[in-house]
């Protein structure tokens, strides 16, 4: 991938390729001082190893008998068994293309390094996300590159007691781009449209949506933490139709990772992108400009807004707009509260 291509893919995807972080050469400090396994093996190491579910080190169907009591032996064996399963197609994807094995073994470990060691993320209010059954998580969008969606999904899976997967809804631009579209689907994403949202909610999934869309991701640094317009409120009608509680979530820290100082609109039009960002480091430093700045992140899930009693009003625009406004207000106020708790964006 050339630097430009990479920049393009990263600059506008709601789903960013986490390669930027992995390849940045930064070796983040590890809480327990251990080093990662060389294989893309499911790593049970790390500060909250207990938070990695379904990743027992012993492979279920290894072709080789293992020797007991040797950590490295088991890691290598499970890594090889993982590679074999991948190469022989011996895994399952759901009807949306979600591949839990790949997400657990490759994507979430990379994101874990990012949100835990690079962004020092603190999470609150996880009890507001339902442990079973559907939930619609609505967040503020920020950061030029939509790392916030990816971080939110990894945080929810790692820290929530029921280890729920967040099924993200992405703009159709995400699914237009080769490679990015594949990663988006494999990590549980799908196109933001009502049929898909309702289908996921009806099957009891936790769905994540960012109603600001590109207006939120592509806003200038001077407008940080000011919520943009919430579109037509399609997410509210999806929740109403399925009677799903809406959980607003405020994410602080995303705005500072790539502070967008200017937007070169003609270039964006030329490349058919919603915006072309200029940050203190991009495009001046080339690929190095794609390293996110290490801001301090706070994520707060707010109390759920029940909608089960409003199922009949899914097509009533007034109810939909009022509810969307309520969600928007909740997120905005929580953002202000979190910002007071974090005076220094790059603090510890």
């Amino acid at each position: 991938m050339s630097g430009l291509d990479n920049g393009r893919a990263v600059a506008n995807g709601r789903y960013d390729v986490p390669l930027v972080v992995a390849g940045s050469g930064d070796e983040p400090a590890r809480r327990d001082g251990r080093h990662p396994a060389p294989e893309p093996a499911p790593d049970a190491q790390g500060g909250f190893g207990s938070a990695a579910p379904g990743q027992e080190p012993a492979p279920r169907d290894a072709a080789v008998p293992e020797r007991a009591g040797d950590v490295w032996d088991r890691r290598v064996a499970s890594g090889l068994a993982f590679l074999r399963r991948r190469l022989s197609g011996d895994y399952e994807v759901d009807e949306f293309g979600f591949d839990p094995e790949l997400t657990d073994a490759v994507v979430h470990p990379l994101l874990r390094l990012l949100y835990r060691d690079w962004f020092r993320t603190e999470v609150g209010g996880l009890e507001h996300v339902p442990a079973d059954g559907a939930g619609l998580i609505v967040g503020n969008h920020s950061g030029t590159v939509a790392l916030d969606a990816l971080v939110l999904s990894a945080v929810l899976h790692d820290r929530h007691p029921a280890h729920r997967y967040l099924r993200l809804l992405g703009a159709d631009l995400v699914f237009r781009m080769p490679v990015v579209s594949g990663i988006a689907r494999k990590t549980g994403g799908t196109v933001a449209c009502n049929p898909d949202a309702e289908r996921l909610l009806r099957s009891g999934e936790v769905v994540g949506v960012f109603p600001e869309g590109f207006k939120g991701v592509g806003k200038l640094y001077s407008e940080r933490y000011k919520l943009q317009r919430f579109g037509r409120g399609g997410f509210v009608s999806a929740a109403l139709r399925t009677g799903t509680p809406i959980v607003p979530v405020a994410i602080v820290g995303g705005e500072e990772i790539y502070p967008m100082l200017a937007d070169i609109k003609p270039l964006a039009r030329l490349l058919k992108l919603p915006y072309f960002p200029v940050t203190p480091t991009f495009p001046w430093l080339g690929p190095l400009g794609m390293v996110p700045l290490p801001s301090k992140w706070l994520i707060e899930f707010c109390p759920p807004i029940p909608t089960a009693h409003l199922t009949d009003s899914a097509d009533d625009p007034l109810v939909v707009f009022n509810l969307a406004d309520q969600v928007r207000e909740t997120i905005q106020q929580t953002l202000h509260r979190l910002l007071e708790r974090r005076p220094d964006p790059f603090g510890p």
Partner: protein
Amino acid sequence: MTPGGTPGAPGVVVVTGVNRYLGAHVAARLAADARIERVIGVDPAAPNPELAGLLDGVERVRLDLGSLGGLLVDLDVDTVVHLALVTAPDPQQGGRSAMKEQNVIATMQLLAACQRAPGLRKLVVRSSTAAYGASFRDPAVFTEETEPREVPRGGFGRDILDIEGYVRGFRRRRPDVTATVLRFAPFIGSTADTTLTTYFSQPFVPTVFGRDPRLQFVHFDDALEVLHRSVAEEHPGTFNVAGPGVLSLSQAIRRAGRVGVPVLEPGLSGAVALARNLGFGRYGLDQVDLFVHGRVVDTSALEREYGFTPRSTVAAFDDFIRAHQGGVVLTRERLAAAERAVLDGIRQVRAAVREQP
């Protein structure tokens, strides 16, 4: 296999396209059903010697679908099963224009004849999940109510939309006829021979770079079962027929032990169209769109209405793999052996290192 004693069982059945693989198998299966009095196979083409053995119990009429009207009235036909669809243009048989003639014009003529047959009670039409088209804004799973967001670029997809449009018109004009439209996912199985089965039989399989479409198949035997039940029972409506579950293309290629060769997307459509016009290359825009967008349908309506669940996409594909072991590049056994060799090697090296002081 089929619930017996159904009052809706027909007397005289006409099956179109019996000189093709699907038509011949359906006609043979209906002929073997004792509840059905007569099965008449209609095809304008000369009989296919490979399939002739199947058609012993079937009365065959070599007839253009345009002149079907007299036959329907004279023989007091009460059910028509329309299977004569061409999925890909055949350069030897007139290419795309002949394909459109056979798909669209012949269906129009057939429906016109059906409309004027007073004794007709049932019409079963083969359609395809290509009816949903392909667009980046598509929902991940199509239900029968999903409207295509863009008209398909491929010829087959457009034909399917036309055919379904004509069937809608027929339903309006003859509400007394039970019309069943079956939208089939691509057929696969141990014996079926389609564009996709030849595609997956090659050792090196072209894919589109950066795209990993979700695919669904229906096993050929399950398709036969659904068609049989549609004739023997009453199932008005439009139904998706596909194996539940999903395979991604990369996963299917790996399961089949083939090697995917990614091809860059820009210019691919043009290159495919050009190759097609020049008369070589088996793939058209229908296939390109499928391999970029993928296609997954909801089959709950079929399961509710027919009380029948086709075997899953994965099981259907496994059946295909078992029958096509030639040309396999990577088998599971070879991968397991490689895994064992690497692991043993690492263990030996580590043991040797440990023994050194």
